[in-house]
């Protein structure tokens, strides 16, 4: 392992043509190799990819529609209905596939909203410091302490349970982690020499923040985004489970809400959607941890220790 590290690092500066881009490529290859060495991280990617592909390809994978009422309700799993049917005779496998779409959609869009808010606040807070830093830190602390789930429930209940509100509310409540992380990165990175160099070249503060510091802070921000997706997926499932999801959207949480009344007589209605949520969250967490270890040499050593 150590010899690989040395040889990759030594090869990069040898060629005169576009050394920086070559070094970046070498670093990326090193990262890929480190990531591939981590078995649980690979399991994570596999799980996430599988669930995303299955959700996207839903219509190709099942002849059934998640909504069409069937003749035989509460059928146990069989060769025609892999996951059985629900109380209205609808195919649970089809609902499972289409339900994955809701999780992926809400998770990704809400996490993107959170990351944009978190990075903006964290960058301003960490780069400029002073009173604006104080205010942003106070607000961030407040949003990490108040009971986020209760606030999400009250807000969606009052504003109306639809897809747009669910995504926006989850996005607006999940940014504190990204803010804290980005702020910490900016506080460290702003003292580096490349920032001084950019300043001497007359770069504006905003251009330093976005073109100099942000690209260097990206790796941990990406890891955080993946973890935020997993947080958003769980929150979406929770809201749907409590009847606060979009009633027109098939989702794993809504399936579990319905399954509650038939738990004993039709356990398949409850088992599969819950497996979907758990595996998706597990995959995202494993992926986030794996990325973190592959990107952070110190953690890599600790994991080995």
């Amino acid at each position: 392992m150590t010899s690989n590290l040395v040889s990759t690092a030594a090869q990069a500066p040898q060629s005169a043509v576009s050394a920086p881009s070559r070094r970046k490529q070498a670093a990326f290859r090193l990262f890929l190799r480190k990531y591939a060495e981590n078995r649980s991280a690979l399991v994570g990617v596999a799980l996430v990819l599988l669930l995303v592909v299955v959700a996207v390809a839903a219509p190709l994978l099942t002849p059934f529609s998640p909504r069409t009422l069937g003749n035989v309700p509460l059928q146990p799993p069989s060769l025609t209905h892999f996951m059985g049917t629900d109380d209205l005779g609808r195919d649970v496998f089809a609902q499972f596939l289409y339900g994955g779409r809701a999780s992926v959609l809400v998770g990704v869009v809400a996490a993107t909203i959170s990351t944009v808010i978190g990075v903006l606040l964290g960058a301003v807070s960490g780069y400029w410091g002073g009173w604006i830093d104080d205010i942003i830190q106070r607000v961030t602390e407040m949003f990490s302490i108040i009971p986020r789930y209760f606030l999400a429930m009250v807000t969606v209940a009052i504003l109306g349970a639809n897809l747009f509100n669910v995504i926006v509310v989850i996005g607006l409540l999940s940014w504190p982690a990204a803010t804290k992380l980005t702020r910490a990165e900016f506080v460290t990175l702003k003292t580096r020499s490349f920032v001084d160099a950019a300043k001497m070249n007359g770069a504006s503060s905003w251009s330093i923040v976005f073109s100099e510091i942000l690209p260097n802070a990206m790796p941990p921000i990406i890891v955080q985004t993946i973890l935020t997706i997993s947080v958003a997926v769980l929150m979406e499932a929770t809201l749907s489970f409590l009847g606060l999801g979009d009633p027109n959207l098939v989702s794993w949480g809504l399936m579990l809400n319905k399954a509650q009344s038939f738990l004993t007589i039709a356990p398949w209605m409850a088992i599969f959607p819950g497996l979907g949520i758990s595996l998706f969250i597990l995959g995202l967490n494993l992926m986030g941890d794996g990325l973190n270890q592959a990107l952070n040499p110190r953690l890599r050593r600790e994991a080995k220790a």
Partner: protein
Amino acid sequence: MKSTSVATLAYVIRRLFQAIPLILGVIAINFTLIHLAPGDPATLLAGEFASPEAVERLREEFGLNDPFYKQFLTYLGKVATGDLGYSYRFRAPVLDIVLDRIPNTLLLLFVSFVLSMIVAVVLAVLSARRPNSLFDNVASSLAMVGYALPMFWLGMMLILVFSSQLGWLPTGGMYSLRGERTGLAMVLDMARHLVLPATAFAAYFMAMAYRLTRSKLIETLREDYIRTAHMKGLSEREVLFRHALRNSLVPVIAVMGLDLGVMVGGAVVVETVFTWPGVGRLMYDSILARDYPLLLGIFVVVSFGVIIINLLADLVAALVDPRIIYD
């Protein structure tokens, strides 16, 4: 000694003052929500089937015809005097209904927390002693899975196995319908009802506390003073429990305290699945009934509770580890 107690007092006062903006923030959020709602805030608070007189009375009471800042002050005054509105469904003041349910939720939270901390710490010590051993790998993988299971699904699966299939434990509620209502029999009956919801709740705390304690312990065990303790001839057990664990637990509790707001959210789904008569189940019932005054009131009370527990956790951490005070 004297300067220490002065510093401690100053720290306590400083932390108390830091809680004030938090409390004001929660009230401001609630106030904003009332006004963000589609339609007339008075109609929202009075409920769907209120008479025009009731709506008019609420409009008067909340000063909804006043300028905005004055409305906020009116609302602030109401919250400060414990007036969180009136639930038309329960025909009772919101504060009374919520306070009535709080002990049941606290019991569930407390039992889950103690249970998970004990199990997590024991497992973390065994793992950290030999990192990457078979035991560590199995425990760490289980923690990863426990961390990913949604509490409500885990609860449903526990009911499926331990109530429906095996018939060992009740599916929900807090007491048996025809059970004893006095003495030890009542406590035992309640304990039987508590096992499954507390387990569903504890799995997540356990996974989190295990992961935090394990990594913190591994870090601590590499410190110089641990090596010194070993060289002094202390037994491994003494080094682990007296030195390493004590210094690792404070940051763990601090991190868990910060996540408290997320954790209490679990009370809603766990109490819903197990029909446990706490604040969480009340929340679910109010969502179904769209009982807005009650929803908003629960949010205020739970937020205040979380802020207070957070404050207490910080103070306890400062007492255990006085270095925090001087940070």
